[in-house]
């Protein structure tokens, strides 16, 4: 819905904009002086200083797959993250868990799970949409590589980054 | 599974009660088979299906629906204890307990799919049944086809079947 914003009626001196300009210049000057005098310091000297210890709880770094505490894949290849991913960075190829597998009960798992980190925009929608809590944005933020192929994280790499995530997963419940 | 000629004759006679549709004879045929074999085995289902010219699944559908049909062998004497309200008020749970104790039957493995508990010696088996329609004389139970009202003492009851 469109909202009509009423423009304020300006006084004649305001219409010259000069007071506003000087005010603005004053603000920037104050910041300049403060910074030059070393009063403010926000920037971190990156490779020497790192944020790692200061990363906020819900920092959105590289998305990765997690296993539960028994090293079982949480992901069931539902492909919802693939669907929701705005830059289409995720590609999943599902497969059936063979009947003789220890975890055959769940029936489905990802055969291939690729996240193209060149495409990834770290939006976190995959984490939000995941019904099995299998994909999380970890705190890794310096994802580098020397080729495009290297920047595509495959399932193995994703589990390496992801590690474990403890918590009950109902789908493994044998009684269910 | 061998169906004796006599039994088959009886079954054939039963089937004639349903001149319109042979399929109607499913219950009588199954009753006859259960009466003879003690329970309805998979072969019995198939035999009945062949007899009535039905798909076996149609017979299985019926067998599994009715609690009156058993798919596993019961004891020589199968006891059914009524557990519905009037009998329960008259003490059918206690009766079941004492019967189990007297007949040495362990009911701990009973589930919805396996309601029947068979005693170690195979002489007695027991299950809870829904209303046996003698609510005024509870607790009641049936041993095979015999009906017993106001059952007070489990041992007295069982003694009749101990030979």
């Amino acid at each position, binding site marked *: 819905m469109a909202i009509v914003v009423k423009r304020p009626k300006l006084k004649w001196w305001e219409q010259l904009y000069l007071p506003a300009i000087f005010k603005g210049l004053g603000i920037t000057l104050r910041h300049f002086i403060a910074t030059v005098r070393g009063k403010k310091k926000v920037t971190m000297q990156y490779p020497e200083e790192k944020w790692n210890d200061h990363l906020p709880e819900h920092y959105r770094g590289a998305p990765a797959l997690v296993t539960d505490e*028994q090293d079982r894949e949480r992901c069931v290849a539902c492909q919802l993250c693939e669907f929701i991913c705005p830059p289409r960075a995720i590609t999943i190829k599902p497969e059936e868990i063979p009947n003789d597998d220890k975890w055959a009960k769940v029936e489905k798992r990802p055969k291939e799970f690729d996240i193209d980190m060149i495409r990834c925009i770290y939006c976190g929608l995959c984490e939000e949409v995941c019904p099995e809590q299998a994909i999380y944005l970890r705190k890794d933020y310096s994802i580098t590589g020397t080729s495009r192929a290297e920047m595509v994280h495959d399932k193995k790499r994703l589990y390496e980054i992801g590690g474990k995530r403890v918590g*009950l997963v109902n789908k493994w419940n044998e*009684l269910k | 599974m061998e169906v004796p000629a006599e039994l088959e004759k009886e079954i054939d006679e039963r089937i004639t009660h349903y001149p319109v549709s042979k*399929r109607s004879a499913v219950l009588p045929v199954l*009753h006859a088979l259960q009466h003879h074999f003690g329970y309805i085995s998979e072969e019995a289902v198939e035999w009945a299906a062949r007899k009535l010219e*039905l798909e076996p699944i149609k017979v299985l*559908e019926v067998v599994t629906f*009715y609690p009156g049909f058993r798919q596993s062998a019961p004891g020589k004497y199968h006891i059914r204890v009524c557990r519905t*309200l009037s009998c329960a008020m008259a003490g059918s749970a206690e009766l079941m307990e004492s019967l189990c104790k007297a007949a040495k039957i362990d009911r701990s493995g009973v589930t919805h799919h396996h309601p029947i508990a068979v005693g170690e010696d195979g002489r007695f088996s027991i299950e809870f049944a829904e*209303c046996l329609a003698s609510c005024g004389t509870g607790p009641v139970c049936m041993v095979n086809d015999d009906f017993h009202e106001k059952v007070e003492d489990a041992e007295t009851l069982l003694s009749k079947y101990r030979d």
Partner: protein
Amino acid sequence: MAAIKYLAGKEPHPNEHRMIFRNVDREGWDPSIDTYLGEGGYEQLKKAVAMEPQAITDEVKKAGVRGRGGAGFPAGVKWGFIPPNNTKPVYLICNADESEPGTFKDRYIIHQDPHQLIEGMAIACFAVGAKLAYIYIREEFPEGAAILEKAIAEAHEKGFLGKGICGSDFDLEIYVHRGAGAYICGEETGLIESLEGKRPYPRIKPPYFPAAMGLYLCPTIVNNVETLCHVKHILDMGGEEYAKLGTPNNTGTRILCVSGDVQKPGYFEVQVGKVTLGEVINDMCGGLKPGRKIQAVIPGGSSAKVLRGDETFKIKKGGEDVELKLEDIPMDFDTLAACGSMAGSGGVIVIDDSRSISWVLNNINAFYAHESCGQCTPCREGSLWMKKITDRVVAGKAAPSDIDTLDAVARNIDGRTICAFGEACSWPTESFIQKFRDELVASTNPDLDEAIVNPETELAAAHLAR
């Protein structure tokens, strides 16, 4: 009629009016045809085959006898539903699948007076034009089935069944069909499906009204054992005379089966509406156990809505407002309906104040969860859900909010199922909650309201811990 002697200790109560049960517990009586013939048996059949079938139906209509199976639908009207231009064969089925908890009258008729039933059936068959009739008897009556088969054979022998009955051109075969322990077979379309050899899934109505599309999609009349027995007596007395028994619109006699917490449970044949609930309990059954009070009464089989012992009922009777106490309720169809319950199948279950209401409700719910056929969604899922909730109530693991859930589930079933089983299983819950909410809530734990009690989570956690 000469005075009938009954077995010692089984004499009828003076308030009784024995008609159907005339020969039950009678001294020197056995179920053989000779005994029966000795008391004027099959006379009415002989009379009937000489009449116009329509005339018999009219008599039954005049008598106003209402179905004794539970719904209380006038039997004559039911017979009249057979399409007038019908060309298909007509079937009659005697519903002897007496499975309503609290009801046990059929057992005595079948065991002790089978020929009364057979005669009634034969008359009814003649009236509706059926040449084939089945007695659908429940599996739990093996002895009854044998007695009936024997009786049928005897009647055959004497020419009361088979070809050209009593010299007329009326042919009739009656067969006994044993069920296999399913309550749902008491529902007429479920019974028909069962008789057709299928799973007894009740049919949808419309289009499968039995009187038009019943057994093998032919017109079929399904009547209760007791109802069919009445036919004989109606013919004997004449419809108008019969209608004088009982109260208007609630004619005849009916058999009340009383069980539960009374001194002398049993069966009593009384004129409909002539006896009050109080008389039945206190008088005929010898009252409650010492020191007990009536907590609740289920007046018409377990599916009838429960009545609270200390309840009063405001109903309209003959255009006047009357207030009735529980003990003052006459045992007829209309008054019980007005009191929010039903006469049902006549099974009166008395519950005294020593009983836990949640336990009673759980027992009933367990019955219905076990007996639900599983065809249609509300009853299939709801009946078991209700049972599981009451399981927890009994175990003290329920929260007060679970009582509301229970009520909501019952209301989700009520009126939304294919057959009347939906009401049968939801009414007890609804009425118990309506009338005994405080008692039910008392056995819950308010602390559990906030906690999500999900056994799956618990079980899963336990599984993981392994």
